[in-house]
């Protein structure tokens, strides 16, 4: 079975903090994705990566950055967290099908 592991299920951070969300996959997939999920808005793509050190902006990249130094790991970075970044963050991996982690529910206070 494909395993996609997100480092935290729940996080509470303060406004202005730098936040790291980590995602690790064990299937040697080229593609990895970060989505944000909000009620009524579905899943919105923040960034994706199709290779090590390669990244592409998704639909809502503002306020976020990413890092992919190793194939199996894709990190989402909130440079200065704001309350409007309170959300569920979902990591996915896959080349012809998306496999999801369990999600990180981030609250920014």
């Amino acid at each position, binding site marked *: 079975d494909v395993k996609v592991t997100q480092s935290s299920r729940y996080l509470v951070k303060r406004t202005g903090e730098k936040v790291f969300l980590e995602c690790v996959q064990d299937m040697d997939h080229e593609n990895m994705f970060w989505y944000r999920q909000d009620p009524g808005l579905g899943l919105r*793509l923040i960034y994706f990566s199709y290779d090590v050190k390669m990244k592409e902006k998704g639909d809502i990249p503002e306020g976020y950055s990413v890092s992919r130094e190793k194939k199996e790991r894709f990190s989402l970075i909130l440079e200065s967290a704001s309350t409007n970044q309170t959300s569920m963050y979902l990591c996915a991996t896959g080349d012809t099908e998306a496999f*999801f982690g369990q*999600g990180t529910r981030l609250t920014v206070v």
Partner: protein
Amino acid sequence: AQSVTQPDIHITVSEGASLELRCNYSYGATPYLFWYVQSPGQGLQLLLKYFSGDTLVQGIKGFEAEFKRSQSSFNLRKPSVHWSDAAEYFCAVGAFNTGNQFYFGTGTSLTVIP
């Protein structure tokens, strides 16, 4: 541009009744289509997928979906709903000629009443 529309935000059905969740897509080439289910507090789990061939696709948990190119639709069906099917359902299209992206609909929330 690629897009996925799920016109029903919320559906309520009685246990044992049939279910159909609607999905329409916009995509310039032959689409790869998916249905995912999300239980509360969990990630998304793949129910079924369509890449090519038979337009009626069978999935897990007794679900099926039918691809209709003329209607740009990929509706999800189940003949008899169980209480455990209560969840959020997402339709998605895979765009593999633009860097392998997946585009998701806004989801349909299913409530099952006894």
